[in-house]
């Protein structure tokens, strides 16, 4: 540690602290040189360097300088303010300084990590320090805003993650709104028969949780609904929810199925979404027996009554509870919540995109999700695994990595498909006795009890061929291939190409972000990764937070995840929300707008522009006036004011121009 002091005794006394960040910064930036440079800048009274400024001894340096009266403003040149601005503001406050007489220069992300040349890095670091020093001169002492937190929470998406988060919060006494866009909650898990690696019956562990949601007095469940608007900020969100018309009065329906029986369609007409289109359903339906809420829904696109009005409407007569209302219209509900948890899950890869796998072209090629329905005892075949001709398959091929680990579709590994492929292999073997061939690139089974499950499958004599399937075709080369689907792949462990004739193929499709993930992200003002998964605040240290305070993530919407991980994350997200509510208030940046009366010409341009109605007009003074409690600091009015009267704390013209001046002067 070295110190360079100048003896300036001006009112404004700035301390500059340059951090080495271990060697993250110092391996590129000549830190001592920047310290000597900073010492000569105007108003700088202290200029120091330290290995880790964020560590206690680093913070102590600043505090000691404040206490000893050497400085009253500080510049720390280190990492991104996203990381440590709060830390150092706190440091200032604890030593009796004002936390806002502080400015950070980011010489790690913006300099050392992205610059190859050491000299250039040092130069750039110095210009950023110069800019920060120039700026901090114009900082004003401010007080942070404290705003109370609304105690209710919104959970979006009723898969296992959303369900678990909602129940955790509700059990803690919080009021929860659970918004699910499908007619029932349950998500993907509701479709499975068994779950890996323990082979628990999926319904047996999920149904009780679904019923608990329905019964919980703290939970308002809005199924068949979507969030259409989000306003406000952490602790105080205003959310608008559209409740799509299900043409059934939810409070009256008891799920007796009479209407479905009575519908003029004698049999199903539209592909049944819940059963992955393996069977058809009627316009009026209940997706599955354990649906929650257990309330019928009428699909307006296919119901003749709704479409044309010319239907005998036998459903209405059949309903003894008068629950059917074909004239129902959508309903918009507005709610206020303090925190939001997004748990919108994933969708599976469209197997048709890989032409060589013949999905949609040959029969008896299924996606894994279709097979999940087929093995489900409550599914369309009653749990029977059968071919189109009704027979049991004698040989089944399971193709891993369909739409994963492939530059042309998705580069990432979908993480759960190796394990669910093993699960399906076991179930197929158990139900049909067929020979089962797993074609895999790498077997990925990290997790408690997962490798053991793989061992079990190996012992069950399932075939494992290490090779990505090249093609699935119906042209034959040998008599035993006649009438079969032929899977061609290299058995890479042996180094020969194999042609394996099978009766049925299961494509283990990868997990993809929901198709509307980008839109949902925009709605909630959070970012997505390049693939479209919701972006967490920090991949290791803030895995359920987002860059928007008060919005948390749970489950597969953040990236491919199995049920245990989804539930763990949902618990974590609920805990984060509870922590926020429990504290009861949030501290907001004091970045509100203010009018400089002497400059305001009274043109009233700003008044209508403020999206929050925070500006009013003072007729007496003939100037505009900002209500600090309503202003959200969006800056719209500041940019619009023709006379430059409107300014915003933390971003005044002086501050911004002097910062620019600092960079330019240096160069």
């Amino acid at each position, binding site marked *: 540690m070295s110190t360079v002091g100048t003896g300036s005794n001006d009112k404004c006394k700035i301390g500059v602290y340059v951090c080495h960040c271990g060697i993250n910064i110092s391996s590129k930036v000549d830190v001592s040189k920047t310290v000597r440079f900073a010492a000569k800048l105007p108003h700088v009274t202290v200029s120091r360097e330290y290995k880790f400024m964020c560590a206690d001894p680093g913070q102590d340096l600043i505090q000691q300088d404040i206490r000893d009266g050497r400085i009253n403003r500080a510049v720390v040149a280190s990492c991104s303010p996203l990381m440590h601005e709060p830390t150092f503001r706190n440091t200032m406050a604890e030593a009796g300084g004002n936390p806002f007489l502080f400015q950070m220069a980011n010489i790690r992300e913006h300099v050392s990590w992205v610059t190859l040349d050491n000299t250039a890095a040092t130069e750039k670091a110095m210009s950023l320090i110069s800019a920060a020093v120039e700026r901090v001169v114009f900082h004003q002492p401010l007080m942070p805003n404290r705003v109370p937190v609304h105690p209710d929470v919104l959970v979006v998406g009723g898969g296992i993650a959303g369900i678990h988060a909602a129940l955790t919060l509700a059990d803690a006494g919080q009021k929860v709104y659970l918004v699910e866009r499908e007619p029932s909650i349950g998500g993907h898990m509701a479709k499975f028969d068994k779950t890996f690696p323990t082979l628990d019956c999926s319904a047996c562990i999920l149904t009780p949780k679904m019923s608990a949601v329905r019964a919980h007095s703290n939970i308002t469940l809005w199924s068949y609904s979507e969030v259409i608007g989000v306003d406000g900020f952490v602790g105080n969100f205003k959310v608008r929810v559209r409740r799509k018309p299900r043409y059934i009065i939810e409070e009256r329906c008891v799920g007796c199925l009479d209407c479905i029986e009575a519908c003029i369609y004698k049999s199903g007409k539209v592909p049944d979404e819940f059963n992955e289109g393996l069977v058809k359903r009627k316009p009026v339906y209940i997706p599955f027996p354990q649906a929650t809420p257990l309330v019928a829904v009428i699909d307006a696109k296919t119901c003749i009554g709704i479409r044309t009005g010319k239907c005998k409407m036998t459903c209405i007569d059949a309903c003894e509870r008068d629950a059917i209302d074909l004239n129902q219209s959508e309903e918009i509900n507005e709610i206020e919540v303090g925190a939001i948890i997004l748990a919108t899950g994933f969708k599976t890869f469209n197997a048709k995109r890989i032409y*060589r796998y013949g999905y949609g072209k040959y029969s008896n090629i299924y996606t894994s999700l279709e097979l999940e329905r087929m093995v489900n005892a409550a599914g369309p075949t009653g749990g029977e695994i059968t071919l189109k001709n009704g027979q049991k398959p004698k040989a089944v091929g399971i193709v891993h*990595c369909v739409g994963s*680990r*492939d*530059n*042309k579709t998705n580069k990432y590994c979908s993480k759960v498909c190796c394990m669910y492929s093993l699960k399906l292999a076991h179930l197929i073997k158990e139900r049909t006795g067929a020979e089962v061939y797993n074609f895999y*690139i*790498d077997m990925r089974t990290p997790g408690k009890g997962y490798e053991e499950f793989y061992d079990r499958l190996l012992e069950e004599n399932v075939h494992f061929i*290490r*090779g*990505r*399937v*090249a*093609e699935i075709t119906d042209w034959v080369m040998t008599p035993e291939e006649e009438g079969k689907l032929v899977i*061609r*792949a*290299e*058995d*890479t462990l042996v*180094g*020969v*190409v194999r042609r394996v004739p099978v009766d049925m193929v299961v494509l283990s499709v990868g997990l993809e972000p929901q198709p509307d993930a980008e839109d949902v992200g925009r709605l909630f003002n959070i970012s997505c990764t390049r693939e479209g998964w919701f972006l967490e605040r920090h991949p290791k240290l803030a895995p359920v937070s987002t860059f928007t305070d008060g919005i948390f993530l749970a489950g597969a919407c953040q990236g491919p995840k199995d049920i245990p991980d989804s539930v763990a994350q949902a618990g974590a997200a609920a805990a984060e929300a509870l922590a926020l509510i429990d504290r009861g208030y949030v501290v907001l940046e004091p970045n509100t707008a203010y009018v400089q009366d002497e400059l305001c010409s009274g043109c009233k341009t700003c008044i209508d522009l403020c999206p929050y109605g925070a500006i009013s007009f003072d007729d007496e003074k003939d100037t505009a006036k900002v209500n600090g409690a309503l202003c959200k600091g969006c800056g719209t009015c500041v940019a619009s004011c023709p006379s430059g009267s409107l300014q915003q704390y933390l971003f005044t013209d002086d501050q911004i121009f002097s910062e620019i001046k600092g960079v330019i002067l240096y160069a």
Partner: protein
Amino acid sequence: MGYAKHRGKIRFESDLEPDFSKEISSIPEGEQLFSCIQCGTCSGMCPLSQYMDYTPRQIIAMIRGGFKNDVLSSYTTWLCASCYSCAVECPKEIKLTDIMYAAKRLAIREGVYPKRFPIPILAHEFFKNVDDSGRNSEGRLILRLLLRTNPLRLFNQAGLGWRLLKTGRFSLKKESIVHKGELKNILKVLEKEHMVKSKEELAPGREAGS
């Protein structure tokens, strides 16, 4: 094959050429080969892997590992019919067909391709034919190929030749372009590049002829 031809299932570090992968990957987009995940899609797609001594996937692994001798003397690269099935389906977008070409060229330059194997001989004949006269004379090419590899097959092919002749699809006339000089001039500029420069280029840091 057996143990007589191959040096068994062990390679000592001294058997390997660590720079081999660099040589091969110096072709345009060749660095892609380092992203191979050994999935075998290429081999599964390849209509010829059935006849190869190493599958296309193994060739990539061997290039990465520096198995220069094994790769250059293999039949695999020569059996490759340039059908591009591997290249278009590789999940890592590795242009395997181009890599096969690069290995073939290196094998010819270093003279280590499988001897008496007709494919490199055909390539040579074709090359000379075209270098000489600008065009390939199909009939003459086939004749020379048979003479150089297996003259006995001439009889075997006689029937085919006769039928081609009869339908006007075969001639032993030497095809040629008019402006041979023009073509010679073009190729001459590249001659040096092709023999020396591109060798340097293919083998950065190595002496020519090593």
